[in-house]
């Protein structure tokens, strides 16, 4: 199973290939990724949001990746298989649902995120964690969009 840059680069990753052409940006991109995964938020919660964002954007490479910190913290393929059912699946609690609801709308329509949704998140995490989660989802969204845009094989 391929992993994120905080572990081993994925094979056939068009984003990694493009960033290889611009080492100054690549290094800072990886520094930002490392900061996101530095422990400010539970890595399991981060991985759930990352994979959900990748899935919504049909980023197959990103969906297949596993972040080592998240795997070490207990993320399993069984858990990720349940991810599309997060609103009703008993595998996910209030904290995960609050974060995933915002992560999904960040991708689909950021203006649809409501005050109530943010209040629900803040009833489950601290403001510092919510800040870290917001930055993380922004990174995941940008990463998946860039990867999909750069992928070869789209002909129409």
């Amino acid at each position, binding site marked *: 199973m391929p992993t994120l840059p905080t572990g081993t680069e994925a094979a056939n990753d068009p984003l990694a290939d493009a960033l290889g052409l*611009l080492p*100054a*940006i690549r290094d*800072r*991109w990886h*520094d*930002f990724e*490392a*900061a*996101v995964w*530095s422990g*400010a938020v539970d890595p399991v919660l981060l991985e759930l949001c990352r994979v959900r964002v990748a899935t919504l954007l049909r980023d197959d490479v990103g969906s297949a990746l596993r972040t080592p910190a998240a795997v070490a913290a207990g993320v399993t393929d069984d858990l990720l298989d349940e991810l599309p059912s997060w609103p009703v699946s008993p595998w996910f609690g209030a904290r995960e649902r609050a974060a995933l609801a915002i992560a999904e709308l960040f991708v689909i329509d*950021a*203006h649809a995120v409501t*005050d109530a949704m*943010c209040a629900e998140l*803040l009833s489950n995490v601290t*403001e*510092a964690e*919510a*800040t*870290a989660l*917001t*930055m993380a989802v922004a990174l995941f969204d940008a990463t998946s969009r860039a990867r999909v845009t750069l992928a070869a094989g789209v002909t129409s």
Partner: protein
Amino acid sequence: MARISPPEGSFVFLDHQPEQYAAFNRLYGALWSTGSVDEATKEAGRLRNAALVDCGL
């Protein structure tokens, strides 16, 4: 009112995570200062992106 209040002594909620914020700013700066695309073209892309997501800031 902001959904996430800035920490005491700050006006920016991102200051809750100063290391992440600094890393983001280093990346953002590199995106503007690196590569062969001129800044006017990058600004046009930035403004178009802001318009598409209706970000008035």
